[in-house]
Protein backbone atom coordinates (compact mmCIF):
# COMPACT_ATOMS: atom_id res chain seq x y z
CA UNK A 1 0.00 0.00 0.00
CA UNK A 2 1.37 3.40 -0.99
CA UNK A 3 0.37 5.67 1.87
CA UNK A 4 0.04 9.36 1.04
CA UNK A 5 -1.27 10.66 4.35
CA UNK A 6 -1.02 9.53 7.97
CA UNK A 7 -3.03 11.33 10.63
CA UNK A 8 -2.02 10.28 14.15
CA UNK A 9 -3.90 11.20 17.32
CA UNK A 10 -4.59 14.81 16.38
CA UNK A 11 -6.39 17.24 18.65
CA UNK A 12 -7.55 20.74 17.80
CA UNK A 13 -9.10 23.45 19.94
CA UNK A 14 -9.92 26.91 18.64
CA UNK A 15 -8.03 29.70 20.36
CA UNK A 16 -9.48 33.07 21.17
CA UNK A 17 -7.02 35.93 21.22
CA UNK A 18 -7.70 38.03 24.30
CA UNK A 19 -5.76 41.26 24.52
CA UNK A 20 -2.95 41.32 27.11
CA UNK A 21 -3.84 37.85 28.28
CA UNK A 22 -2.88 34.34 27.27
CA UNK A 23 -4.90 32.88 24.43
CA UNK A 24 -8.17 31.60 25.85
CA UNK A 25 -8.63 27.94 24.95
CA UNK A 26 -11.94 26.39 24.13
CA UNK A 27 -13.04 22.75 24.23
CA UNK A 28 -11.47 20.53 21.60
CA UNK A 29 -13.30 20.35 18.29
CA UNK A 30 -11.11 17.51 16.98
CA UNK A 31 -10.34 14.77 19.48
CA UNK A 32 -7.80 12.03 18.97
CA UNK A 33 -8.33 11.37 15.27
CA UNK A 34 -6.15 8.83 13.48
CA UNK A 35 -6.37 7.31 10.00
CA UNK A 36 -4.32 6.52 6.91
CA UNK A 37 -5.05 7.46 3.31
CA UNK A 38 -3.64 5.45 0.41
CA UNK A 39 -2.53 7.18 -2.76
CA UNK A 40 -5.22 7.11 -5.43
CA UNK A 41 -8.06 6.43 -2.99
CA UNK A 42 -11.13 8.53 -2.32
CA UNK A 43 -11.88 9.02 1.37
CA UNK A 44 -15.32 10.26 2.34
CA UNK A 45 -15.87 12.05 5.63
CA UNK A 46 -19.52 12.12 6.69
CA UNK A 47 -21.36 13.53 9.68
CA UNK A 48 -23.96 16.09 10.61
CA UNK A 49 -23.30 19.82 11.01
CA UNK A 50 -20.92 20.52 13.87
CA UNK A 51 -19.25 17.11 13.79
CA UNK A 52 -15.87 18.65 12.92
CA UNK A 53 -15.55 17.52 9.29
CA UNK A 54 -14.49 20.87 7.83
CA UNK A 55 -12.23 21.60 10.81
CA UNK A 56 -10.51 18.25 10.29
CA UNK A 57 -9.73 18.94 6.64
CA UNK A 58 -8.52 22.45 7.49
CA UNK A 59 -6.10 20.89 9.98
CA UNK A 60 -5.00 18.34 7.36
CA UNK A 61 -4.17 20.98 4.78
CA UNK A 62 -2.53 23.27 7.34
CA UNK A 63 -5.04 26.14 7.46
CA UNK A 64 -5.46 25.34 11.15
CA UNK A 65 -2.65 24.16 13.38
CA UNK A 66 -3.38 21.10 15.48
CA UNK A 67 -2.50 21.12 19.19
CA UNK A 68 -1.29 17.53 19.47
CA UNK A 69 -0.52 14.63 17.20
CA UNK A 70 0.93 14.39 13.70
CA UNK A 71 -0.19 14.99 10.15
CA UNK A 72 2.35 13.22 7.94
CA UNK A 73 2.38 13.49 4.17
CA UNK A 74 4.54 11.32 1.92
CA UNK A 75 4.69 13.46 -1.16
CA UNK A 76 6.40 12.33 -4.34
CA UNK A 77 8.25 15.61 -4.70
CA UNK A 78 8.19 18.87 -2.84
CA UNK A 79 9.82 22.07 -3.99
CA UNK A 80 9.10 25.71 -3.36
CA UNK A 81 6.75 25.88 -6.37
CA UNK A 82 4.66 22.78 -5.64
CA UNK A 83 1.30 22.83 -3.93
CA UNK A 84 0.59 19.18 -3.24
CA UNK A 85 -2.61 19.77 -1.22
CA UNK A 86 -5.49 21.80 -2.65
CA UNK A 87 -8.95 22.39 -1.21
CA UNK A 88 -12.17 23.26 -3.02
CA UNK A 89 -14.34 25.14 -0.55
CA UNK A 90 -18.10 24.99 -0.32
CA UNK A 91 -18.91 28.64 -0.99
CA UNK A 92 -18.95 28.95 -4.78
CA UNK A 93 -19.23 32.75 -4.60
CA UNK A 94 -15.66 32.95 -3.31
CA UNK A 95 -14.05 30.50 -5.73
CA UNK A 96 -13.19 32.85 -8.58
CA UNK A 97 -13.01 36.60 -9.18
CA UNK A 98 -16.58 37.63 -10.09
CA UNK A 99 -15.36 40.37 -12.42
CA UNK A 100 -12.82 38.45 -14.45
CA UNK A 101 -13.66 36.52 -17.61
CA UNK A 102 -13.38 32.74 -17.53
CA UNK A 103 -11.02 32.90 -20.51
CA UNK A 104 -8.54 35.07 -18.57
CA UNK A 105 -8.81 32.99 -15.40
CA UNK A 106 -8.14 29.72 -17.22
CA UNK A 107 -5.41 30.93 -19.58
CA UNK A 108 -3.55 32.28 -16.56
CA UNK A 109 -3.67 28.84 -14.93
CA UNK A 110 -3.04 26.92 -18.17
CA UNK A 111 -0.75 28.87 -20.54
CA UNK A 112 -0.39 25.66 -22.57
CA UNK A 113 -3.45 25.50 -24.84
CA UNK A 114 -3.34 21.71 -25.13
CA UNK A 115 -3.48 21.27 -21.35
CA UNK A 116 -6.26 23.84 -21.16
CA UNK A 117 -8.33 21.97 -23.73
CA UNK A 118 -7.73 18.72 -21.83
CA UNK A 119 -8.89 20.13 -18.52
CA UNK A 120 -11.93 21.78 -20.12
CA UNK A 121 -12.88 18.46 -21.69
CA UNK A 122 -12.43 16.66 -18.35
CA UNK A 123 -14.42 19.23 -16.37
CA UNK A 124 -16.98 19.91 -19.12
CA UNK A 125 -16.21 23.63 -19.25
CA UNK A 126 -17.70 24.86 -22.53
CA UNK A 127 -16.13 27.52 -24.75
CA UNK A 128 -19.44 29.38 -24.61
CA UNK A 129 -18.61 30.15 -20.97
CA UNK A 130 -15.22 31.68 -21.76
CA UNK A 131 -16.56 35.18 -22.32
CA UNK A 132 -18.65 35.18 -19.15
CA UNK A 133 -17.41 36.74 -15.94
CA UNK A 134 -17.48 34.94 -12.61
CA UNK A 135 -20.77 36.43 -11.42
CA UNK A 136 -22.50 35.45 -14.68
CA UNK A 137 -21.83 31.76 -14.07
CA UNK A 138 -24.10 29.42 -12.14
CA UNK A 139 -22.84 27.90 -8.88
CA UNK A 140 -22.00 24.65 -10.63
CA UNK A 141 -20.16 26.40 -13.44
CA UNK A 142 -18.14 28.44 -10.92
CA UNK A 143 -17.28 25.23 -9.14
CA UNK A 144 -15.91 23.70 -12.35
CA UNK A 145 -13.79 26.75 -13.20
CA UNK A 146 -12.54 26.88 -9.59
CA UNK A 147 -11.68 23.21 -9.83
CA UNK A 148 -9.74 23.81 -13.05
CA UNK A 149 -7.61 26.45 -11.33
CA UNK A 150 -6.94 24.08 -8.45
CA UNK A 151 -5.96 21.24 -10.77
CA UNK A 152 -3.47 23.49 -12.57
CA UNK A 153 -1.35 23.16 -9.42
CA UNK A 154 -1.25 19.37 -10.05
CA UNK A 155 -2.04 18.52 -6.43
CA UNK A 156 -1.39 15.07 -5.03
CA UNK A 157 -4.27 15.48 -2.58
CA UNK A 158 -7.51 17.24 -3.45
CA UNK A 159 -9.93 18.05 -0.65
CA UNK A 160 -13.57 18.70 -1.57
CA UNK A 161 -15.60 20.44 1.15
CA UNK A 162 -19.33 19.76 0.69
CA UNK A 163 -19.15 19.85 -3.10
CA UNK A 164 -22.78 18.70 -3.52
CA UNK A 165 -24.54 21.12 -1.23
CA UNK A 166 -27.15 23.50 -2.70
CA UNK A 167 -27.19 21.56 -5.99
CA UNK A 168 -30.21 20.02 -7.64
CA UNK A 169 -30.13 16.22 -8.09
CA UNK A 170 -29.14 16.48 -11.76
CA UNK A 171 -26.13 18.66 -10.91
CA UNK A 172 -25.20 16.31 -8.07
CA UNK A 173 -25.15 13.37 -10.50
CA UNK A 174 -23.07 15.46 -12.91
CA UNK A 175 -20.50 16.21 -10.23
CA UNK A 176 -20.43 12.60 -9.05
CA UNK A 177 -19.61 11.55 -12.62
CA UNK A 178 -16.98 14.27 -12.83
CA UNK A 179 -15.25 13.23 -9.60
CA UNK A 180 -15.31 9.57 -10.63
CA UNK A 181 -13.82 10.58 -13.98
CA UNK A 182 -11.08 12.54 -12.22
CA UNK A 183 -10.39 9.57 -9.98
CA UNK A 184 -9.88 7.37 -13.04
CA UNK A 185 -8.05 9.78 -15.37
CA UNK A 186 -5.87 11.82 -13.02
CA UNK A 187 -3.16 10.65 -10.66
CA UNK A 188 -4.87 12.14 -7.65
CA UNK A 189 -6.06 11.27 -4.16
CA UNK A 190 -9.30 12.78 -2.92
CA UNK A 191 -10.88 13.54 0.45
CA UNK A 192 -14.56 14.42 0.09
CA UNK A 193 -16.47 15.95 2.99
CA UNK A 194 -20.24 15.66 2.86
CA UNK A 195 -23.26 15.28 5.11
CA UNK A 196 -24.81 13.04 2.42
CA UNK A 197 -23.76 9.45 3.03
CA UNK A 198 -25.76 8.21 0.03
CA UNK A 199 -23.74 10.36 -2.39
CA UNK A 200 -20.45 9.44 -0.74
CA UNK A 201 -21.29 5.77 -1.13
CA UNK A 202 -21.17 6.30 -4.91
CA UNK A 203 -17.79 8.03 -4.84
CA UNK A 204 -15.66 6.97 -1.89
CA UNK A 205 -13.49 3.91 -1.43
CA UNK A 206 -13.51 4.37 2.35
CA UNK A 207 -15.73 6.39 4.66
CA UNK A 208 -15.10 7.99 8.04
CA UNK A 209 -18.21 8.68 10.12
CA UNK A 210 -17.64 11.60 12.48
CA UNK A 211 -19.57 12.93 15.43
CA UNK A 212 -18.56 15.47 18.07
CA UNK A 213 -15.01 15.74 16.74
CA UNK A 214 -14.30 12.01 16.90
CA UNK A 215 -14.37 9.06 14.54
CA UNK A 216 -17.34 6.79 15.23
CA UNK A 217 -16.65 4.29 12.50
CA UNK A 218 -14.26 3.87 9.53
CA UNK A 219 -14.17 1.32 6.73
CA UNK A 220 -14.92 0.50 3.09
CA UNK A 221 -17.85 2.59 1.83
CA UNK A 222 -20.14 -0.31 0.97
CA UNK A 223 -19.44 -2.03 4.29
CA UNK A 224 -20.15 1.15 6.26
CA UNK A 225 -23.49 1.34 4.49
CA UNK A 226 -24.49 -2.31 4.88
CA UNK A 227 -22.54 -3.67 7.85
CA UNK A 228 -22.14 -0.65 10.14
CA UNK A 229 -22.20 -1.28 13.88
CA UNK A 230 -22.11 2.15 15.48
CA UNK A 231 -25.48 3.48 16.70
CA UNK A 232 -24.72 6.89 15.17
CA UNK A 233 -23.96 5.44 11.73
CA UNK A 234 -27.23 3.56 11.97
CA UNK A 235 -29.03 6.77 12.97
CA UNK A 236 -27.55 8.60 9.98
CA UNK A 237 -28.53 5.92 7.49
CA UNK A 238 -32.03 5.60 8.98
CA UNK A 239 -32.32 9.38 8.58
CA UNK A 240 -31.59 9.13 4.85
CA UNK A 241 -34.37 6.58 4.58
CA UNK A 242 -36.72 8.88 6.53
CA UNK A 243 -37.25 6.29 9.23
CA UNK A 244 -36.64 8.53 12.23
CA UNK A 245 -39.24 9.88 14.59
CA UNK A 246 -38.82 12.25 17.54
CA UNK A 247 -38.38 9.32 19.96
CA UNK A 248 -35.15 8.39 18.16
CA UNK A 249 -33.57 11.60 19.43
CA UNK A 250 -32.44 10.75 22.95
CA UNK A 251 -31.41 13.51 25.34
CA UNK A 252 -29.24 13.60 28.40
CA UNK A 253 -28.04 16.23 30.80
CA UNK A 254 -24.69 14.50 31.36
CA UNK A 255 -21.74 16.79 30.88
CA UNK A 256 -19.27 15.46 28.28
CA UNK A 257 -16.11 17.27 29.25
CA UNK A 258 -13.69 14.36 29.02
CA UNK A 259 -11.91 13.74 25.70
CA UNK A 260 -12.08 10.01 26.49
CA UNK A 261 -15.86 9.78 26.56
CA UNK A 262 -18.06 8.99 23.59
CA UNK A 263 -19.40 12.28 22.18
CA UNK A 264 -22.56 10.49 21.03
CA UNK A 265 -23.46 9.60 24.66
CA UNK A 266 -26.20 12.25 24.95
CA UNK A 267 -28.14 10.88 22.02
CA UNK A 268 -27.32 7.20 22.18
CA UNK A 269 -30.01 4.65 22.95
CA UNK A 270 -27.57 1.95 24.13
CA UNK A 271 -25.26 4.01 26.39
CA UNK A 272 -24.04 3.26 29.87
CA UNK A 273 -21.90 5.18 32.36
CA UNK A 274 -18.75 3.47 31.12
CA UNK A 275 -19.19 5.36 27.84
CA UNK A 276 -18.37 8.53 29.81
CA UNK A 277 -14.94 7.16 30.71
CA UNK A 278 -13.63 5.25 27.71
CA UNK A 279 -14.58 3.92 24.29
CA UNK A 280 -13.48 0.55 22.90
CA UNK A 281 -12.07 0.14 19.41
CA UNK A 282 -13.46 -2.93 17.66
CA UNK A 283 -12.55 -4.29 14.24
CA UNK A 284 -14.96 -6.58 12.48
CA UNK A 285 -15.57 -7.32 8.81
CA UNK A 286 -13.09 -4.67 7.74
CA UNK A 287 -14.79 -1.89 9.73
CA UNK A 288 -13.27 -0.19 12.75
CA UNK A 289 -15.99 0.83 15.21
CA UNK A 290 -15.44 3.01 18.27
CA UNK A 291 -18.23 1.89 20.59
CA UNK A 292 -18.73 -0.02 23.83
CA UNK A 293 -22.08 -1.42 22.68
CA UNK A 294 -21.94 -1.90 18.91
CA UNK A 295 -25.12 -3.02 17.18
Amino acid at each position, binding site marked *: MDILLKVEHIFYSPKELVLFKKNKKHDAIIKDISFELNRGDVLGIVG*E*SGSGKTTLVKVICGILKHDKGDVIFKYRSVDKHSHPVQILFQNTNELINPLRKVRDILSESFPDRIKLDEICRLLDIKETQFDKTGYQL*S*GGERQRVGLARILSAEPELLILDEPFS*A*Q*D*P*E*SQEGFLDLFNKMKNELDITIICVS*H*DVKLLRQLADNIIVMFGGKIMEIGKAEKIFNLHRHPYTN*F*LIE*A*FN*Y*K*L*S*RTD*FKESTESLKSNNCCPYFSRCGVRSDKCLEYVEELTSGGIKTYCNFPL
Partner: protein
Amino acid sequence: MLSASINSVDILIDNQCKRILQNISFKLEKGNVYTILGKNGSGKSTLINTLTKLLDNSIYNIDATIEFNGINLFELNTAELLRIRKEKIKYVFQDSVNSFDNLKKFEYYFKMPDASEEESRNLFGYFLLPKKEILFNLYPYEVSGGMAQRISICLAILAKPELLILDEPTSAIDINISNLLCNKLREFVYSHRSSVLLITQDIDFAEHVSDYIAHLSNGTLSQFIKLSNT
Protein backbone atom coordinates in the same frame (compact mmCIF):
# COMPACT_ATOMS: atom_id res chain seq x y z
CA MET B 1 -58.86 26.56 -0.83
CA LEU B 2 -56.45 28.14 -3.32
CA SER B 3 -56.91 28.34 -7.04
CA ALA B 4 -54.08 29.77 -9.15
CA SER B 5 -54.25 30.77 -12.78
CA ILE B 6 -51.00 32.37 -13.96
CA ASN B 7 -50.97 33.40 -17.61
CA SER B 8 -47.51 34.94 -17.44
CA VAL B 9 -44.88 36.41 -15.15
CA ASP B 10 -42.20 38.46 -16.89
CA ILE B 11 -39.15 40.17 -15.45
CA LEU B 12 -37.60 43.36 -16.77
CA ILE B 13 -33.79 43.07 -17.11
CA ASP B 14 -31.65 45.63 -18.98
CA ASN B 15 -34.81 47.05 -20.59
CA GLN B 16 -35.75 43.63 -21.89
CA CYS B 17 -38.68 41.49 -20.85
CA LYS B 18 -37.87 37.90 -19.97
CA ARG B 19 -40.68 35.39 -19.42
CA ILE B 20 -40.22 33.35 -16.25
CA LEU B 21 -43.60 31.63 -15.88
CA GLN B 22 -46.44 30.91 -18.29
CA ASN B 23 -49.75 29.07 -18.54
CA ILE B 24 -49.77 27.69 -15.01
CA SER B 25 -52.92 26.64 -13.25
CA PHE B 26 -53.49 24.49 -10.20
CA LYS B 27 -55.73 24.08 -7.16
CA LEU B 28 -54.74 23.33 -3.59
CA GLU B 29 -57.22 21.52 -1.36
CA LYS B 30 -57.28 21.37 2.44
CA GLY B 31 -55.44 18.63 4.29
CA ASN B 32 -52.69 17.98 1.74
CA VAL B 33 -48.98 18.58 1.24
CA TYR B 34 -48.17 19.77 -2.25
CA THR B 35 -44.58 19.88 -3.51
CA ILE B 36 -43.16 21.62 -6.56
CA LEU B 37 -39.85 20.22 -7.74
CA GLY B 38 -37.54 22.08 -10.10
CA LYS B 39 -33.94 22.83 -10.87
CA ASN B 40 -32.10 25.96 -9.78
CA GLY B 41 -33.39 28.88 -11.80
CA SER B 42 -36.60 27.16 -12.92
CA GLY B 43 -38.81 29.84 -11.31
CA LYS B 44 -39.99 28.03 -8.18
CA SER B 45 -39.47 30.95 -5.81
CA THR B 46 -41.03 33.35 -8.35
CA LEU B 47 -44.09 31.11 -8.50
CA ILE B 48 -44.75 31.01 -4.77
CA ASN B 49 -44.03 34.72 -4.39
CA THR B 50 -46.60 35.43 -7.11
CA LEU B 51 -49.37 33.82 -5.06
CA THR B 52 -49.67 36.67 -2.54
CA LYS B 53 -48.23 39.49 -4.67
CA LEU B 54 -44.79 39.47 -3.05
CA LEU B 55 -43.05 40.37 -6.31
CA ASP B 56 -41.95 43.94 -7.02
CA ASN B 57 -44.39 45.45 -9.54
CA SER B 58 -41.73 47.76 -10.92
CA ILE B 59 -39.66 44.79 -12.10
CA TYR B 60 -42.22 42.07 -12.71
CA ASN B 61 -45.22 42.03 -15.06
CA ILE B 62 -47.78 39.63 -13.66
CA ASP B 63 -50.89 38.43 -15.44
CA ALA B 64 -52.57 36.12 -12.93
CA THR B 65 -55.66 35.39 -10.89
CA ILE B 66 -55.15 33.86 -7.47
CA GLU B 67 -58.29 32.93 -5.52
CA PHE B 68 -58.05 32.05 -1.84
CA ASN B 69 -61.28 30.79 -0.29
CA GLY B 70 -63.13 32.44 -3.16
CA ILE B 71 -61.42 35.83 -2.80
CA ASN B 72 -59.24 37.16 -5.61
CA LEU B 73 -56.01 38.14 -3.83
CA PHE B 74 -54.95 40.37 -6.73
CA GLU B 75 -58.01 42.59 -6.15
CA LEU B 76 -57.34 43.18 -2.45
CA ASN B 77 -55.90 46.42 -1.14
CA THR B 78 -52.62 46.47 0.80
CA ALA B 79 -54.21 46.24 4.26
CA GLU B 80 -56.42 43.32 3.27
CA LEU B 81 -53.48 41.50 1.69
CA LEU B 82 -51.34 42.05 4.78
CA ARG B 83 -54.10 40.53 6.92
CA ILE B 84 -54.17 37.46 4.68
CA ARG B 85 -50.39 37.07 4.98
CA LYS B 86 -50.51 37.55 8.73
CA GLU B 87 -53.38 35.20 9.52
CA LYS B 88 -54.12 32.84 6.66
CA ILE B 89 -51.08 32.25 4.46
CA LYS B 90 -47.65 31.97 6.06
CA TYR B 91 -44.30 31.79 4.32
CA VAL B 92 -41.03 30.25 5.45
CA PHE B 93 -38.32 31.65 3.19
CA GLN B 94 -35.11 29.89 2.27
CA ASP B 95 -32.77 32.55 3.67
CA SER B 96 -34.14 32.33 7.19
CA VAL B 97 -31.41 34.28 8.97
CA ASN B 98 -32.04 37.33 6.80
CA SER B 99 -35.80 37.05 7.29
CA PHE B 100 -35.27 38.45 10.77
CA ASP B 101 -34.23 41.90 11.96
CA ASN B 102 -30.80 41.40 13.51
CA LEU B 103 -31.54 44.10 16.09
CA LYS B 104 -34.54 42.27 17.56
CA LYS B 105 -34.31 39.28 19.83
CA PHE B 106 -36.39 36.24 18.93
CA GLU B 107 -38.79 37.06 21.75
CA TYR B 108 -40.15 39.88 19.59
CA TYR B 109 -41.36 37.47 16.92
CA PHE B 110 -43.20 35.06 19.19
CA LYS B 111 -45.85 37.42 20.54
CA MET B 112 -48.89 35.71 19.05
CA PRO B 113 -52.32 35.17 20.58
CA ASP B 114 -52.95 31.86 18.78
CA ALA B 115 -50.09 29.99 20.38
CA SER B 116 -50.11 28.87 24.02
CA GLU B 117 -47.02 28.66 26.20
CA GLU B 118 -47.23 24.89 26.17
CA GLU B 119 -47.51 24.72 22.37
CA SER B 120 -44.43 26.91 21.94
CA ARG B 121 -42.34 24.90 24.40
CA ASN B 122 -43.41 21.60 22.86
CA LEU B 123 -42.54 22.79 19.37
CA PHE B 124 -39.13 24.14 20.41
CA GLY B 125 -38.39 20.84 22.12
CA TYR B 126 -39.59 18.86 19.11
CA PHE B 127 -37.17 20.66 16.79
CA LEU B 128 -34.31 20.36 19.31
CA LEU B 129 -34.16 24.12 19.82
CA PRO B 130 -32.88 25.69 23.05
CA LYS B 131 -35.38 26.23 25.86
CA LYS B 132 -37.66 29.24 25.47
CA GLU B 133 -35.80 31.23 28.17
CA ILE B 134 -32.54 30.89 26.22
CA LEU B 135 -33.97 31.18 22.71
CA PHE B 136 -35.93 34.37 23.40
CA ASN B 137 -32.75 36.12 24.50
CA LEU B 138 -30.85 35.37 21.31
CA TYR B 139 -30.41 37.67 18.32
CA PRO B 140 -30.73 36.25 14.80
CA TYR B 141 -27.04 36.76 14.10
CA GLU B 142 -26.20 34.51 17.05
CA VAL B 143 -27.76 31.39 15.54
CA SER B 144 -26.76 29.14 12.66
CA GLY B 145 -28.66 29.01 9.38
CA GLY B 146 -30.16 25.67 10.34
CA MET B 147 -31.41 26.94 13.67
CA ALA B 148 -32.85 30.07 12.06
CA GLN B 149 -34.71 27.86 9.60
CA ARG B 150 -36.18 25.77 12.42
CA ILE B 151 -37.20 28.90 14.31
CA SER B 152 -38.93 30.25 11.18
CA ILE B 153 -40.79 26.97 10.80
CA CYS B 154 -41.91 27.07 14.45
CA LEU B 155 -43.15 30.63 14.04
CA ALA B 156 -45.15 29.69 10.97
CA ILE B 157 -46.69 26.56 12.49
CA LEU B 158 -47.62 28.31 15.75
CA ALA B 159 -49.61 30.88 13.75
CA LYS B 160 -51.83 28.02 12.55
CA PRO B 161 -52.23 29.31 8.98
CA GLU B 162 -54.63 27.75 6.51
CA LEU B 163 -51.83 27.56 3.95
CA LEU B 164 -48.15 27.17 4.84
CA ILE B 165 -45.69 27.86 2.04
CA LEU B 166 -42.07 26.76 2.43
CA ASP B 167 -39.17 27.62 0.15
CA GLU B 168 -36.44 24.95 0.24
CA PRO B 169 -37.12 24.07 3.89
CA THR B 170 -34.36 21.44 4.09
CA SER B 171 -31.59 23.51 2.51
CA ALA B 172 -29.93 24.48 5.80
CA ILE B 173 -30.89 21.60 8.06
CA ASP B 174 -29.34 18.18 8.55
CA ILE B 175 -31.06 15.03 7.34
CA ASN B 176 -32.08 14.04 10.88
CA ILE B 177 -33.96 17.33 11.33
CA SER B 178 -35.49 16.83 7.86
CA ASN B 179 -37.05 13.68 9.28
CA LEU B 180 -38.59 15.67 12.12
CA LEU B 181 -39.84 18.32 9.69
CA CYS B 182 -41.39 15.70 7.43
CA ASN B 183 -43.33 14.19 10.33
CA LYS B 184 -44.37 17.57 11.72
CA LEU B 185 -45.70 18.87 8.38
CA ARG B 186 -47.79 15.77 7.87
CA GLU B 187 -49.14 16.07 11.41
CA PHE B 188 -49.87 19.77 10.79
CA VAL B 189 -52.03 19.25 7.71
CA TYR B 190 -53.84 16.35 9.35
CA SER B 191 -54.62 18.01 12.69
CA HIS B 192 -55.43 21.51 11.37
CA ARG B 193 -57.00 20.60 8.05
CA SER B 194 -54.53 23.09 6.58
CA SER B 195 -52.41 22.76 3.48
CA VAL B 196 -48.72 22.95 2.82
CA LEU B 197 -47.11 24.03 -0.42
CA LEU B 198 -43.38 23.57 -0.57
CA ILE B 199 -40.75 24.00 -3.24
CA THR B 200 -37.59 21.97 -3.10
CA GLN B 201 -34.85 20.18 -5.00
CA ASP B 202 -34.71 17.53 -2.28
CA ILE B 203 -36.42 14.63 -4.01
CA ASP B 204 -36.12 12.25 -1.05
CA PHE B 205 -37.81 14.77 1.26
CA ALA B 206 -40.49 15.46 -1.34
CA GLU B 207 -41.27 11.76 -1.74
CA HIS B 208 -41.70 11.24 1.98
CA VAL B 209 -43.64 14.39 2.89
CA SER B 210 -45.91 14.95 -0.10
CA ASP B 211 -49.41 13.97 -1.07
CA TYR B 212 -49.02 15.57 -4.50
CA ILE B 213 -45.93 16.47 -6.57
CA ALA B 214 -45.55 18.64 -9.67
CA HIS B 215 -42.52 19.64 -11.72
CA LEU B 216 -41.65 23.15 -12.82
CA SER B 217 -39.58 23.28 -15.96
CA ASN B 218 -39.07 25.95 -18.62
CA GLY B 219 -41.56 28.16 -16.82
CA THR B 220 -44.44 25.71 -16.96
CA LEU B 221 -45.85 23.46 -14.27
CA SER B 222 -46.87 19.87 -14.79
CA GLN B 223 -50.06 18.53 -13.22
CA PHE B 224 -49.91 17.61 -9.57
CA ILE B 225 -49.62 13.83 -9.35
CA LYS B 226 -50.85 12.02 -6.25
CA LEU B 227 -48.23 9.86 -4.57
CA SER B 228 -49.39 6.37 -3.75
CA ASN B 229 -47.44 5.94 -0.50
CA THR B 230 -49.32 8.59 1.52
